[in-house]
C-alpha cells in the first residue's frame, strides 16, 4: 500500500479499533494501526510467505482463503474491516461484502479502477490492459472480478451499502481535479468507507 493510500486509511480508522484486514499481505498496515492507533488487529492471508512476513512483523494473522474463511467470523464484532486491493480477487465479492458488513461496522475498500483511460486504451488496442495498479499479465493475475468505479458504486447503491467517505486517486496516487471530476475515466484507484 503506498503512502498516500495508507495515510487515508489510517485517518479513517479510529484509535482503539478492533480491525480485520482481509488480504493483509505482510501486515504492514496492521502493524502501523497497532503502533500508532492502539488498534487490535487481525489479518487474513493465504500466502505462506506473506504470513511469515506478518509473524516477523508481530502481526496476528489467520491463514485462510477469504471467500471460504469469511463464514468463520459470524457473530463477531469488528469496528472496521479492510479490503485493500483484494475485493477483485474474490470469487463472490458481493456476498463477501454483505458478510463483511455483518461482522464489521464499517469497511474500508480500495479498488483499482478498470475504467481508467489508460486501461480503456489498452482494450481499444485489442489487448488485456495493464497498469501500475494492475501490473500482472492476464494469465497470471489473481483478479477475478475487476470493475470500474461506476460499477462498484452501482453495486453499493443496489445493495444499500452506504458510502460514507470516498477518495479518488490518480495514477501517481494523488488527488487531482480530473480524477475528482471524472473519476471513472481519470482515477486509477478509489478508496471507500462503507457502512
Amino acid at each position: 500500500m503506498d503512502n498516500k493510500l495508507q495515510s487515508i486509511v489510517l485517518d479513517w480508522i479510529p484509535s482503539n479499533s478492533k480491525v480485520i484486514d482481509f488480504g493483509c499481505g505482510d501486515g504492514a498496515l496492521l502493524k502501523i494501526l497497532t503502533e500508532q492507533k492502539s488498534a487490535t488487529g487481525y489479518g487474513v492471508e493465504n500466502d505462506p510467505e506473506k504470513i511469515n512476513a506478518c509473524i516477523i512483523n508481530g502481526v496476528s494473522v489467520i491463514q485462510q482463503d477469504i471467500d471460504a474463511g469469511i463464514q468463520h467470523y459470524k457473530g463477531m464484532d469488528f469496528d472496521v474491516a479492510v479490503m485493500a486491493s483484494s475485493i477483485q480477487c474474490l470469487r463472490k465479492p458481493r456476498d463477501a461484502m454483505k458478510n463483511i458488513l455483518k461482522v464489521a461496522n464499517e469497511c474500508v475498500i480500495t479498488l483499482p479502477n478498470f475504467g481508467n483511460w489508460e486501461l480503456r486504451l489498452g482494450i481499444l488496442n485489442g489487448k488485456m490492459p495493464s497498469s501500475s495498479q494492475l501490473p500482472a499479465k492476464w494469465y497470471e493475475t489473481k483478479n477475478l472480478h475487476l470493475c470500474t468505479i461506476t460499477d462498484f458504486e452501482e453495486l453499493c447503491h443496489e445493495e444499500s451499502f452506504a458510502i460514507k467517505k470516498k477518495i479518488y486517486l490518480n495514477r501517481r496516487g494523488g488527488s487531482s481535479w480530473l480524477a475528482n471530476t471524472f473519476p471513472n475515466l481519470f482515477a486509477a484507484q478509489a478508496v471507500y468507507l462503507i457502512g
Partner: protein
Amino acid sequence: MKTVCKKISFGDSLALESGQTLSGFELMTETYGELNSDKTNAVLVCHAFSGNHHAAGTQEGEEKPGWWDEMIGDGKTIDTTKFFVVSLNNIGGCHGSSGPTTIAAETDQPYGANFPEVSVSDWVETQKLLADYLGISCWEMVAGGSLGGMQALQWAISYPKRIKKAAIIAASSKISTQNIALNEVAREIIKKDENFHNGDYLVKGASPKNGLKAARMLGHITYLSESNMSKRFGRKLQDPDNKMDADVNYEVENYLQYKGEQFSKTFDANSYILMTKAMDSFDPAKDFDNNLVKCLQSIQAKLLIASFDSDWLFPKEYGLDIQMSAIKAGIDSTYLELEGAYGHDSFLFYSDQYAAVLKNFLNSNG
C-alpha cells in the same frame, strides 16, 4: 550445546485437579543452553503423549536423538545459543518423574494403578513450580505439539503474566469424541492383557507387554496419515529374513510390530492409561461455563496456533476453533495450516515452512 539432565525433588504436597494430593514429587528434567543473567531467555517445551524430558541431543548408547531434536539445538529453530530450553517428563509418566512406577513412601511399593489421576493443569502446576525453582519468572515461550500443545495453551490460561508466547501445535482445546473412543480401545486392550492384574503387575512381577504393544500399534496408525503410510510402505511384502512375527505379510505390519514392541519395552501400562485420561479430560473451557472465549480472555501471551494439513487426529478445525475464540476474546493470536507429510506426527519433524514460522514467532517482538 550445554545439556544438563537432572532429577529435582519438590517437597511441597501437590493438590491435584482430581481432589487427590501428592505428598511431594520428583521431576526428571533436561535443559539445553544457558539461562541469561536476567533469566529472560527461557523456553519451556512440553512433551506429547509418549514423550519425555529428553527432547534434544543424542545420549550415549542411544540410536535416536530426543523427540524434538530437529527443532532444538545450536543454530536450530529454537536456537540454544540464544535460548535456555527446559524440558521435563510430566508426572504420571514413566521416564524418571513421579509416576505409577515410582515407589510410594506410604506403602514402600510402586504406585501402580494407585497413582492419582493427573490432568494437563496439574502438569502446568508442576511446571510452574519448576520455573520457580529455576528462578524463571516469565517464559519467553512455552511450546508443544499435541498433548504438549494443550499444556502450552493451559499455561497461557493459568499464568497469564508468566508466559510471553505460546506455540500450540497440532493441538486442540479439547479432543474429539472419536479421539476419546480410540483412547478407550487402547485402554481396553491394555486392561484385558492377562498380565495387567488390575494395574498391580509390578508387584506381581508381571508385565502387560502384549496389551501395551497392541495399544501402541493402534495409536501409531492414528499418528500417521493415510498417504504417508501408502507412500512409505504401499503394499510391499516384508523381507522374510527380517520378520518380527511369522504371520507378518506386509512391510506395514512388520513396521507396526516393531514400533509396538519397542514401545512396550520402554513404556509403562499404567502411565499409558493415565496419559490418555489426561488427554481425554482436557477442556479448559469447562471452568468457564463451557465458553472458550471467556476462558481465553485472561490470556496476555501471544498465541501461535498451527495445524497440519495431513493430521486427521487433530484436524485443522480444532486449531481454527481456538483461533476464532481468541479473536472474539481480543487476544493476540495467529493461526496457520502447515503442510505436513506425516499426519499428526508432523509436529515432530522439521520442514522449512514450519521451522520458519516457529523461529519467526519465537524471535518476534513480544
